[in-house]
């Protein structure tokens, strides 16, 4: 149980602190520190799992973690820490704009963040499908508070759609999990089990029909949460209505959780007799998702909606990787996507503040407004569209080069087309944003401080690209 304490102590403290009478200015200093501290603690906690390639670190019954899980855990918390750190500047600027909400909103934001991140951490820590479901549902509930942050009609609408669509989807996931559980009771494991590792071990003996059904339901359910086309409908609304740091969290961390769940279930199915289903369905669906998303990118009007759709596209790529059955590649892609996308969302937050609008047709000449923003923005966009020398390129290249059979080959072709299309679409918008003369008076004056976090993230993404360390760490051949 001590690990539960270690896991929840700091979030709870930050919750408590945010609920006390502390000034928001003080919170802006304390909370980020706490989140970084949390990251450190988690690193220590999952250190053994990180080091070994095979062994699974078990904390207690239902709670254990392996290498990939640990990577995701740390990634999630890192993303959370950086976006919360950046949110300090963000909210300070909001104040400058006079759009500053009263402090308790911001405090509530911190509370929700803490809970949200904890829920996400549980997704990676639990070994129990049921608890996995519970924690993912929990993330929905907590993040709803983040989406609702600005408390206007739009955010309300976005929140409602998010809540309803995701809950319905997730409900199906629960159905799927129950089916898998039922399938495990047919002789495989006496009394049945929800432990993923047990299921993977006994995948052969699981009742095939139930397993298959369960897999499909899980794919649908977690797919809704991950924003797979055409279940992505909630995603752009939620991302564009949430405040920039929150959208960064949603896109950079939450999607990974849902995809991780899919990855876990797929792992079970891959060793069962339905391997074909597990290798073909996600691949095709991923490619199609990427394609659809890249079409959505073309006539886009909102800067954050743009990045939301590019997240959908990346979700497609990750689903592709999952279908190829290579968890490390999935993580690598997720890593690069998260780094770049978070940088983009944070910068977009700055840009929106300075331009005073989310409308792409009114944001121009950012290179003139602030070269540092502009260049970082361009770099991040290049990274997220999979341009070398950033990590995204390497990840996508490795994913594409892993295709074996004809189906995967065709899907790879579709994916290539989607990548090209999305790059063109994105860089059309980015070019218009960066170039030309600014249309607006800069409301918020760009400070270099507000570029630090995105810049760091870009640099990390670059390092992920030009060094072999991540891949060797994940011991890919």
């Amino acid at each position, binding site marked *: 149980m001590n690990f539960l304490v270690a896991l929840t102590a700091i979030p709870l403290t930050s919750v408590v602190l945010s609920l006390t009478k502390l000034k928001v200015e003080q919170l802006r200093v304390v909370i980020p520190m706490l989140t970084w501290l949390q990251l450190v603690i988690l690193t220590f906690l999952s250190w053994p799992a990180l080091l070994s390639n095979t062994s699974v670190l078990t904390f207690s019954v239902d709670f254990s973690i392996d290498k990939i899980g640990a990577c995701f855990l740390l990634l999630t918390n890192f993303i959370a820490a950086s976006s919360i750190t950046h949110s300090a500047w963000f909210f300070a600027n909001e104040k400058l704009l006079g759009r500053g909400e009263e402090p308790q909103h911001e405090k509530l934001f911190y509370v929700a963040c803490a809970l949200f991140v904890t829920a996400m951490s549980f997704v990676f820590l639990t070994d129990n499908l049921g608890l996995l479901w519970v924690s993912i549902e929990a993330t929905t509930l907590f993040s709803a508070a983040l989406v609702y942050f600005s408390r206007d009609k739009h955010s309300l609408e976005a929140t409602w759609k998010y809540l309803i669509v995701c809950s319905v989807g997730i409900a*199906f996931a629960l159905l799927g999990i129950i089916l898998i559980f039922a399938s495990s009771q047919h002789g495989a494991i006496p009394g049945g089990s929800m432990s993923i590792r047990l299921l993977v071990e006994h995948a052969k003996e699981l009742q095939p029909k139930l397993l298959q059904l369960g897999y499909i339901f899980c794919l649908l359910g977690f797919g809704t949460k991950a924003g797979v086309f*055409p279940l992505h409908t909630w995603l752009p609304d939620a991302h564009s209505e949430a405040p920039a740091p929150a959208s960064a969290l949603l896109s950079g961390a939450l999607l990974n959780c849902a995809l991780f769940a899919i990855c876990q279930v797929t792992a079970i199915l891959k060793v069962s007799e339905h391997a074909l289903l597990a290798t073909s369905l996600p691949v095709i669906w991923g490619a199609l998702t990427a394609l659809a998303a890249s079409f959505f990118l073309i006539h886009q009007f909102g800067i954050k909606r743009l990045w939301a759709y590019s997240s959908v596209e990346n979700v497609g790529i990750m689903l592709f990787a999952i279908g190829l059955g290579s968890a490390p590649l999935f993580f690598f892609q997720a890593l690069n996507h998260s780094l770049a996308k978070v940088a983009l969302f944070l910068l977009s937050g700055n840009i929106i503040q300075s331009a005073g609008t989310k409308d792409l047709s009114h944001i121009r000449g950012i290179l003139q407004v602030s070269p540092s923003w502009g260049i970082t923005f361009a770099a991040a966009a290049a990274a997220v569209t999979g341009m070398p020398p950033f990590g995204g390129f390497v990840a996508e290249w490795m994913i594409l080069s892993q295709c074996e059979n004809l189906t995967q080959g065709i899907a790879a072709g579709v994916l290539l087309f989607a990548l090209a299309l999305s790059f063109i679409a994105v860089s059309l918008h980015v070019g218009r944003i960066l170039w030309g003369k600014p249309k607006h008076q800069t409301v918020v004056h760009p400070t270099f401080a507000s570029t630090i976090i995105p810049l760091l993230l870009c640099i990390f993404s670059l390092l992920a690209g030009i060094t072999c360390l991540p891949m060797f760490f994940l011991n890919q051949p």
Partner: protein
Amino acid sequence: MNSETFVKARATGTGQVQEMATFGVLALLLSLISLALVLGHRKQLKSAIPAALTLISALASTVLLILSWGHDLGWQSQTPFWLGIFPLTFKIDSLSRLYLTLLSVIVCAVSIFSPGYLSHIAAKIHAGQYWACFLVFIASMYAVIASADAITFLVAWELMSLASIALVATDHSHQSVQKSAFIYLGATRVSSALLAGGFLWMHAISRSWSFHDWIFNDPVTYLPALLILIGLCIKAGIWPFHIWLPYAHPAAPATVSAIMSGFMIKVAVYALIRILVFGALNSTLIIALAFTLAVVSTFWGVLFALVQNDLKKLLAYSSIENVGLIVMAIALSLYARQASLATIADLAIIAAIFHSWNHGLFKCLLFLSVGAVDSQAHTRDLRHLGGLAKRMPWTMAFFFAGSFAICSIPPLNGFSSKFLIYESLFKNVLQCPTFTEKGLSLAVICLLSAVGALAIAVFVKAMGVGFLGVARSKAVHHAEEAGWGMLLAQACLVILCVVSGVNADAASRLIADSLTSAGLKVDYTISSVLPTGTTAVLLAALSALTYLLFLKASKVTNYRTWDCGFGTLSPKTQVSADSFAQPLARIFRPFLRYENSARFEGQDRRHFPEVVTVQTQIVSILENRVYLPGLALIGGLARLLARLQAGSIHLYLLYVCATLCLLLFLGMAQ
């Protein structure tokens, strides 16, 4: 790159020369990039410093390349610095050395040219960003040529594209520049996507990333070969994929367009040779396709060059023509190789490489001179130029030299390579088996001569209307001779043009030997050596004699141009670029669609117009009939898809149900 070829590469190089050269090229790249990164943020900086550094490193690399001539240099990135699981592998064999040397030469010239030129447009550009992108651009081109495997190649290729896009958009305050940048961006991304597809496919077939292991002699490999071919053709600006070229070159600063047109499109040519020719592609269909496209683009390019008014656009179109020539030679060589007509194959490939070298030189020269004109007269539009002869005689002289070279007038270098192309076609007529092939290559010879004549018309127009006669606008009156840096750069290139023209034979032999040592057995057998050198000397001597002995003595009186006694005529009575091209354009009416738009101004416009402005512009058929509809189709699809996101939650829930049914159906079907 798989290890044994790498080891081979290392083994062939001898000791410290190789180490030195490797280190040198490496140092060059690193210094360039670090410099770029350092400069990234400076708003205004003296262009002299980076220019000098670039010059030094380019000279250094030239020297190193020449010192290490004959040794293959190999270098593989050490372990932390890999791309994921792929090491960056470089290999400079004698083929890549040829191109690298050309690149170094061009970079030298451009870096001499830069400071003077940039000082004229300093107000419009962010010098730091410009130099950063410029250096990354150059470095990535070095990397592309030196890369030994597909991944290194693609990475460098993408970097090259990104940097050049940024450079095209250097002066991004204009909408038109942005538009060109976007068009270029789209084209280049499509090309890299196709390349990636081909590379991945080849990897799936051959299980290796190294070009060395890719052999295209199996029907399985034809589709990837086609993908690669088209991808490269887009970058090279082959018809019908050339659309981006006339946009990108004029939009970019002269220094950039000089390199883009002088070398970047040759990178694609190099890749064609490296991958398809060394890969011994033997699919007649694909070769025929390449040949046809190339022939069409020679004709198309020169035809549209004829009707351009913007000097840079004109040059861009003539680049299309010349690249067409090069690719045609490559295709011919591929065809001859698989028809086992060795001599023709060798001659053609030599011609291709030699012409790409020559075109690199004189196209760079021409772009630089146009840049000089632009920096002085602040316009490149032939409708406003003219009469520069008196203002900037040296620039004119260099431009003329370049024009003569590009019109392949002996004894300049353009002719020497074009002659090889003619010769190989002629030999093909003699030797190839079937009657149709003979007839075809005869027709191509005929077409090429027509293209040559058209090119003469094009450049006479450029020279005559642009430099001779009376100035057509105020701007020209203030023009003065360009600075010494600009002139020096052009002068060097002119000298190189003459040298490589006169020593055509030696150059061809050099190319043949390089190809042989690069692994493609080529011997240079030509019936007899052209007397280009003798002709040159004779021409010069006779001209000098005629002047000294005959013309010098005559007493000259100056008077007005013959004006039928009307008194001084206004510059408007001179022939304009359009009217000069009109008789030719009339012949090709089916291809060239003019669009006239007249505007009448002033009150009571119908009866007494005060200002009448008539605009004539050429309509690009491909763009209007093919590309715009295609884009519109994609846009329409996007709009259609966007309707899915209609905002109604009931709809969204329906999607969930529909997907559920679909998945159940699919999943249960299995």
